[in-house]
């Protein structure tokens, strides 16, 4: 074995550092809980599984967000795509609930993709507008109140029941993760995604239908947001206004902390996974510490800056 193969690649370093940081959080949190309560909940598998179950929703959203960030775009319509999927699924009900919910996500993604890829409107502003439209549609649909309709049995089973002692939501997250990782690493679509993120014009000249790939990416992002919405509705037994608002910025943060370049073209799915776990653990420790919202926000911001200072620094433009 040569030394070259032992050296970490540029994409692996962030993942390793973020994983180390997770360990630091776990150790520091355990020391804190042991000193204060004389117990170590962070090391108990039950507690960790419960935290990861809540983290699964963020994880699924982040998977889609990563795909869009990899092609150097962003999807700000996630909050109300998620809420719309949840509301439509609960109001349809029956066996069609989940397909309809996911369909809503695909449709929103298709619309986003057409606007960004064919109309060439910057995704930052187009998805922002779509988010407002979805919010408007849902507010008009529900009258601004929490919808009374309940999630179906299947949605609740998928989101909050357990199989072999493991929450089902974790299995869903695992399936999504495997699909996304395989797509990114092993399929032509994955190669196209990285190519577009690096230089769309070059990918186009190399014969990639970049616009169609962009549409597909936005549809995948809408699909994952919708899936998270359907599950979240199952977890809380119903849909509610603003249920997606808490997922937009954390999902972007998780993707970036995981080493994906916000300008696209670089990053591994494993990193996003690590980023999600990091954010979920950080959140759970802050709530164990009874940290007020003010302190949470400050720590949250400082952690993102700190992690990026360690490994996210860009190069200077010198030519």
């Amino acid at each position: 074995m040569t030394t070259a193969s032992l050296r970490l690649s540029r994409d692996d370093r962030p993942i390793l550092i973020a994983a180390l940081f997770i360990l630091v959080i776990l150790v520091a949190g355990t020391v804190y809980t042991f000193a204060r309560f004389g117990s170590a909940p962070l090391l108990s598998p039950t507690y960790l599984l419960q935290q990861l179950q809540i983290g699964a929703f963020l994880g699924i959203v982040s998977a889609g967000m990563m795909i869009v960030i990899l092609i150097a775009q962003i999807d700000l319509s996630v909050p109300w795509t998620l809420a719309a999927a949840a509301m439509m699924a609960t109001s349809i009900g029956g066996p069609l609930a989940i397909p309809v919910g996911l369909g809503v996500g695909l449709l929103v993604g298709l619309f986003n993709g057409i606007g960004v890829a064919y109309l060439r409107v910057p995704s930052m502003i187009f998805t922002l507008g779509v988010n407002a439209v979805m919010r408007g549609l849902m507010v008009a649909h529900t009258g601004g109140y929490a919808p009374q309709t309940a999630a179906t049995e299947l949605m609740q089973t998928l989101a909050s029941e357990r199989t072999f002692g493991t929450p089902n939501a974790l299995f869903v997250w695992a399936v999504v993760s495997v699909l996304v990782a395989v797509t990114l690493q092993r399929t032509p679509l994955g190669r196209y995604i990285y190519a577009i993120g690096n230089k769309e014009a070059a990918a186009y000249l190399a014969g990639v239908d970049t616009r169609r790939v962009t549409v597909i990416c936005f549809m995948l992002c809408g699909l994952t947001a919708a899936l998270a919405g359907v599950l979240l509705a199952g977890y809380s037994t119903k849909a509610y206004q603003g249920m997606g608002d808490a997922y937009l910025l954390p999902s972007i943060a998780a993707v970036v902390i995981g080493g994906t370049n916000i300008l696209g073209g670089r990053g591994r799915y494993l990193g996003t996974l690590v980023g999600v776990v990091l954010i979920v653990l950080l959140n759970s420790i802050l709530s164990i510490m009874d940290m007020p919202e003010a302190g949470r926000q400050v720590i949250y911001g400082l952690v993102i800056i700190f992690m990026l200072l360690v490994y996210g620094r860009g190069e200077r433009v010198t030519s």
Partner: protein
Amino acid sequence: MPLPGPRMLDDLAIRARQNVGLVTAVLLFCILYLLYNLSHPKGFSPAVLVQNGDEIFALAMLAMAQTVPVLMSGLDLSVGAVMTMVACFASYLLTGAPEGTPLHLEIFGLYVGLGTFPGGIAGILLGMAVCVAIGTFSGFINGCVVVYGRIQPIIATLATGAVYIGIALFLRPTPGGKIDEDLNWAMTNSLGDFASTVHILDDGAAAWFAPFAWIPVPFVLLVLIALVVWLPFRRSVLGRAVYAVGSAEGAAYMSGLPIDRAKIAAFTLAGFFAGCGGLFLAIQTSSGNADIPQAGAYTLNSIASVVIGGTSLLGGTGGAIGSIFGAMILRVISFLFRIFDIAPLLQPLFEGLILLAAVSIGALRVLRVRNTLELFR
């Protein structure tokens, strides 16, 4: 004065073509505002104008704030947070109590006295200066994180924005605080009311002053800030460097422009504008409120204003004046909802559709492109 010869017309045509975004925004605003005043029962009256000015000012400031980083192809997701934080500071510093305001910090049960902030007129002026300075300083920090930390602006300001919101929440866990009533009255009404409150120009009764007395103070402030801060900056070396970085950073570097200083200046100026917005918001609402959804909505609306005002998100073209008109268009649209009695439930839908329609009009460019490669800039 030379007659408008063919060359001068050419010049005008070129200038109009270069500023097509700005011209469109101004025209659109004029049409919408005319429509608004025609359908308002008290249209074209100073009272309506004053009310509009108060509702427009904070967003117009944030739109200017957002413009500067966007011009150098960055983005500042912390403008709403800076505004909220400054408003929370203002709710402590601008109480106007004659004996001054005692300040203290309480962290984890630790009580630290910080002395007394001066009261009276001097205290209010000092307080306003401190508030704007806080905004400017937080913008400076953003710039330093972006330049020396070499972190992408969008993600750097996402993180610093969380910190600023945290500070705002720390200051005002629940809405509250107080702003001096005279200050509130003087800043949110017409010039005449301003003069009579601060006792200048014979309490606003000076004969020559009468024709101007109806102008709302926020509009005067907006024009003043645009003329005194934005235009000189745009003409300075740093301002030109900001445009150059937005067009082609590599070329700007090779031309020897002060890139780092330009970037820091852009974010600092954004912080200054956002600070002014926060100061006014506090004065207008007479309180401080660490409202996270409101901060987010202001940030997103500032981006929308910038785009509607004709500034490209890719950087390099546009300007803060256009963004002011963009902000005014957004606000007038919501005024129109009130006039036409559109059900409040449908308003978010229309707002979104109008935003989408506005940005998609820019997409007509796609139809003119002959070489597909030109699309992938």
